[in-house]
């Protein structure tokens, strides 16, 4: 096994072990300091990964680095996925520390679990074998079962945890059954062998069934309709930083896997999976945009919003072109930044507004110009207002769908974009023009202001100068498709 390819994963695993041991044997060190140290270390690992490309430098561009007999690959998509996992975990950890307050006994355990989910996505981004896919995906999902139910004394959180567990276990089972069928058809769990069988003129029925079941299982992870029913309830019940983590990391993990699986392993069966993805995209767009209209809780609204965004990204997958798939990666970048902004603000107000009622956001514009501004930019980017990242991302999706000749889907997507504009703007209307419930000012520490300022700048920069992000995404996808 080429251990040196796993450097970044091992660094995160060591960080996890260190965190747990120090917390266990030196209970006098305040947990907040430990959590902050973990954030700093993770930032260090992120920096190292970006700087050196996980220790392999530019070599991933020349070819694929394969380890473990084809189980583990280190290519552009893998590095991209790892970076995404790092940033999602970092935002969630900072939000979690703000959310938890000073007297949280389980802060270190929570950070530990967040790191575990991050590790899961890092492995998933590199997974090129269904066994590793399953283990990595379960690492992410099992962590979320625990995190969602982590406010043990809050009935809503426990309810969300149970719902997520039952639905998640079921969909994992379906996915595993799909993998078993793929194994039955190909005699192997590797992506390379699967690709060989899938490229036959008439791929075996078993392989088609297997892919269908796996797409159903992945649909759950992505909150794609018709497997999205859990999303609003779980998003609402989970503690706010966990919802933020769920919305970003589990979506990123699902899409990185979907892109790799469909292009590398099932690239030869486009005619089969195209309509499936197309239907999932259309339904997600409709459910996500129409379902969000009548919501009164911002967290629930974000649940529907995440379903709608899954729909937009599936549109890019369904376009089966480098432009579409590269657009998905670009979309995820903008989506991560905007969600971190919106959920960051939600964590700041969660003390006075535990259920995140939209009408209680009334007057936020006057109470804290900073928080209102951050929420404004986040929501505008999610709704796709130029020149923010969300606008360019949606535009790329529409363009890919147009070039792919999917006029019906494109129509649905345009409709969904317009409808979802209503519910995002509704929150903004409440924030600036609503009758205030509370009027006292909100104190926001400088660290949070700095982070939100950086995030807002990121959203604007990714939208204003899409060039480098777009070129990078395109290069990653071209390398993947060229194989």
């Amino acid at each position, binding site marked *: 096994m080429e251990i040196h390819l796993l450097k970044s994963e091992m660094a995160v695993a060591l960080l996890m072990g260190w965190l747990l041991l120090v917390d*266990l*044997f030196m209970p006098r060190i305040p947990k907040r300091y430990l959590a902050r140290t973990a954030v700093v270390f993770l930032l260090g690992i992120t920096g190292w990964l970006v700087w050196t490309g996980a220790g392999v430098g530019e070599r991933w561009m020349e070819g694929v680095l394969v380890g473990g007999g084809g189980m583990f690959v280190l290519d552009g998509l893998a590095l991209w996925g790892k970076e995404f996992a790092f940033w999602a975990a970092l935002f969630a950890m900072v939000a979690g520390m703000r959310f938890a307050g000073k007297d949280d006994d389980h802060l270190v355990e929570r950070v530990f679990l967040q790191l575990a989910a991050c590790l899961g996505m890092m492995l998933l981004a590199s997974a090129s074998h269904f066994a590793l896919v399953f283990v990595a995906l379960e690492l992410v999902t099992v962590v979320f079962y625990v995190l969602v139910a982590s406010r043990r004394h809050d009935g809503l959180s426990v309810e969300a945890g149970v719902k997520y567990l039952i639905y998640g276990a079921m969909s994992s089972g379906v996915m595993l059954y799909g993998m078993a069928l793929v194994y039955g058809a190909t005699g192997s769990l590797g992506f390379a062998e699967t690709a060989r069988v899938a490229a036959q003129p008439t791929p075996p029925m078993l392989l088609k069934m297997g892919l269908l079941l796996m797409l159903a299982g992945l649909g759950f992870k992505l909150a794609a309709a018709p497997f999205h029913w859990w999303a609003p309830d779980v998003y609402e019940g989970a503690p706010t930083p966990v919802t933020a983590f769920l919305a970003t990391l589990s979506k990123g993990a699902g899409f990185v896997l979907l892109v790799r699986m469909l292009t590398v392993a099932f690239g030869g069966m486009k005619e089969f999976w195209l309509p499936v993805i197309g239907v999932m995209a259309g339904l997600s767009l409709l459910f996500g945009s129409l379902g969000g209209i009548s919501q009164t809780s911002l967290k629930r609204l974000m649940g529907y919003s995440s379903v709608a965004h899954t729909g937009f990204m599936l549109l890019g997958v369904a376009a089966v072109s480098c432009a579409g798939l590269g657009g998905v990666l670009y979309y995820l970048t903008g989506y991560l930044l905007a969600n971190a902004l919106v959920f960051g603000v939600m964590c700041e107000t969660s003390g006075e507004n535990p259920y995140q009622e939209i009408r209680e956001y009334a007057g936020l514009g006057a109470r804290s110009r900073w928080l209102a501004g951050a929420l404004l930019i986040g929501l505008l980017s999610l709704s796709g207002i130029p020149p923010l990242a969300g606008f360019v991302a949606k535009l790329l999706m529409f363009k890919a769908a147009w070039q792919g000749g999917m006029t019906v889907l494109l129509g649905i997507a345009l409709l969904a974009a317009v409808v979802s504009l209503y519910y995002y703007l509704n929150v903004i209307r409440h924030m600036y023009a609503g009758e205030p419930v509370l009027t006292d000012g909100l104190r926001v520490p400088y660290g949070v202001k700095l982070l939100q300022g950086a995030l807002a700048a990121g959203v604007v920069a990714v939208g204003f100068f899409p060039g480098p992000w777009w070129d990078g995404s395109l290069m990653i996808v071209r390398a993947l498709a060229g194989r």
Partner: protein
Amino acid sequence: MIFAEYLPAALQAGIALAFVAAMLIVPPIVAKKGAPNPAKDSAYECGLPAAQSGRPRFSIKFYLVAILFVLFDIEVVFLYPWAVVYKEMLREGLSILFSMLTFLAILFLGFLYVWKKGALDWK
């Protein structure tokens, strides 16, 4: 036809479904219907009156013990096949030793955590 190989499985599934369906459909038709009474509705306990509810509540601690049992049970499940092939694999290099040592180290870390947090105390 590739599905011919799955005929036995399909046959078994068919028999199972037919059996369940028969058990659900036939008794209400064949059985003699009578007015319900308390004795009929009570749980059947070999002729003795039921002492308590069929689903007693038990301490949540068992749950933790069960989880820990599964954890360490799985460890043994991994160790057995490892021990069987150990000598042969050792000739190819030390990686078999170190991979198991890593696994045990991670598990030991978990054990320490469980111990220190008092999950093994019955209180």
